[in-house]
């Protein structure tokens, strides 16, 4: 093996890598927040909605879980264009990621909702809380707390999967890598560096979720139960 590694050639590109990381974080953060909202609403709809809503959510989840993200991204990207609306690649990327992660979130949150005991709902009802108040104060927080580790893993996967949006020329870390490697012809080195940067981002996302969890789930914080 006579290959000479040359990482020095990549040094001048560090601002681009940094920008790529930042864009990837932004992209995933927006998709995570919106995906969580969409997924949670779907989970509630599936658990408690009229039959038509239940059916629609089940179909949505099955379709998304049984087709590749890459194809979903193409469909959203070209689909929006077909409607005659012009949006940036990054907007289409966020939309596709939200549609995708919303389905997975809804399945995870549904498991959490099912873990909340019926007696809790009865107690809330007897205290006079409305349906919405019961969901907000009594059901959602314990439900999400129960499945928080699964949600964390799902959103780390989302961050990694956001690399696929480079295929519609969305601006993020992998797109930066593709550009740098074609500028420098140092493909192997570039992807080693970017691989390490993604590892770093995975770690950052996990830490962020852990800190957020400590902030939101006060009981865990006080009683020292592991998240």
């Amino acid at each position, binding site marked *: 093996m006579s290959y000479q590694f040359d990482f020095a050639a990549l040094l001048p590109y560090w601002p681009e890598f940094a920008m790529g990381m930042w864009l990837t974080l932004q992209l995933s953060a927006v998709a995570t927040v919106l995906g969580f909202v969409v997924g949670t609403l779907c989970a509630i709809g599936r658990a408690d909605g009229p039959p038509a809503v239940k059916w629609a959510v089940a179909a949505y989840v099955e379709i998304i879980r049984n087709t590749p993200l890459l194809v979903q991204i193409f469909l959203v990207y070209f689909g929006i264009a077909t409607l005659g609306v012009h949006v940036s690649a990054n907007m289409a990327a966020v939309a596709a990621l939200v549609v995708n992660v919303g389905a997975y979130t809804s399945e995870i949150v549904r498991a959490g909702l099912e873990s909340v005991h019926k007696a809790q709902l009865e107690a809330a009802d007897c*205290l006079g809380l409305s349906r919405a108040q019961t969901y907000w104060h009594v059901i959602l927080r314990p439900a999400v707390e129960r499945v928080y580790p699964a949600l964390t893993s799902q959103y780390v996967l989302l961050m990694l999967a956001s690399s696929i949006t480079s295929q519609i020329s969305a601006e993020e870390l992998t797109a930066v890598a593709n550009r740098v490697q074609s500028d420098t012809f140092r493909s192997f080195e570039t992807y080693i560096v970017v691989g390490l940067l993604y590892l770093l981002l995975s770690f950052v996302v996990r830490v962020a979720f852990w800190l957020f969890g400590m902030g939101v789930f006060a009981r865990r914080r006080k009683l020292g139960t592991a998240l």
Partner: protein
Amino acid sequence: MSSTLSSPLSPVVSLSNVHKSFGALKVLDGVSFDVGVGEVAAIIGQSGSGKSTALRCINALETIQQGTIQVCGHAIHDPALDRRALRRDVGIVFQSYNLFPHLTVEQNIMLAPTCVKALSKGEARDLAREVLSHVGLEAKADQYPEQLSGGQQQRVAIARSLAMRPKLMLFDEVTSALDPQLTGEVLKVMETLAREGMTMILVTHEMAFARKVASKVVYMHQGRVWETGTGAMLDDPQTPELRAFIGNGL
């Protein structure tokens, strides 16, 4: 067999010829009784006699097939019942406490007053302190339910109901899940409430407590009100069924 004991004031709760089935199983078979203001009514009977179902019907947790139930002026049997209005007048305490595990004791108590009665956080906190001192647990305000004993959790559950200032309190076998030592502390709280004039209906296995505190005892058997009277009725049962029940129980 039927109630002849008339309440001195207009009744807070009035059941008349209530029928309830779960599928083919008849659980309530023409139940009628009244509970007046300030009365403490104890419903006793074997498991399967329909006593817990009767209590749940009073709070509209079960729907009935026939008959009428009036509770604090609400027609429970009416499909157009305003449940939220009913909830403001009636508090209930369950056998399994059903505290919200992710909220502190104080937050458990503050939840309904802020959500339902739109009290400010400050007012609700003062209220929480007040009802907690009533059940002797002011020191536990910032603890989580899982940090408390069963008896303490049940007293918090009572305080949580009291915070809504109900006109009527229902107790569904609230000491059945507790050790004898812990049972005592919960019964003491209930006795205090009774002395203060709270109208209460309790489903219970504690015969000594029923005899001492209840102003009215309703003995249910096979989905019917079999015998009604004062606490003294337990010393002088009229029917062989009640005699057998007391014989087994004591």
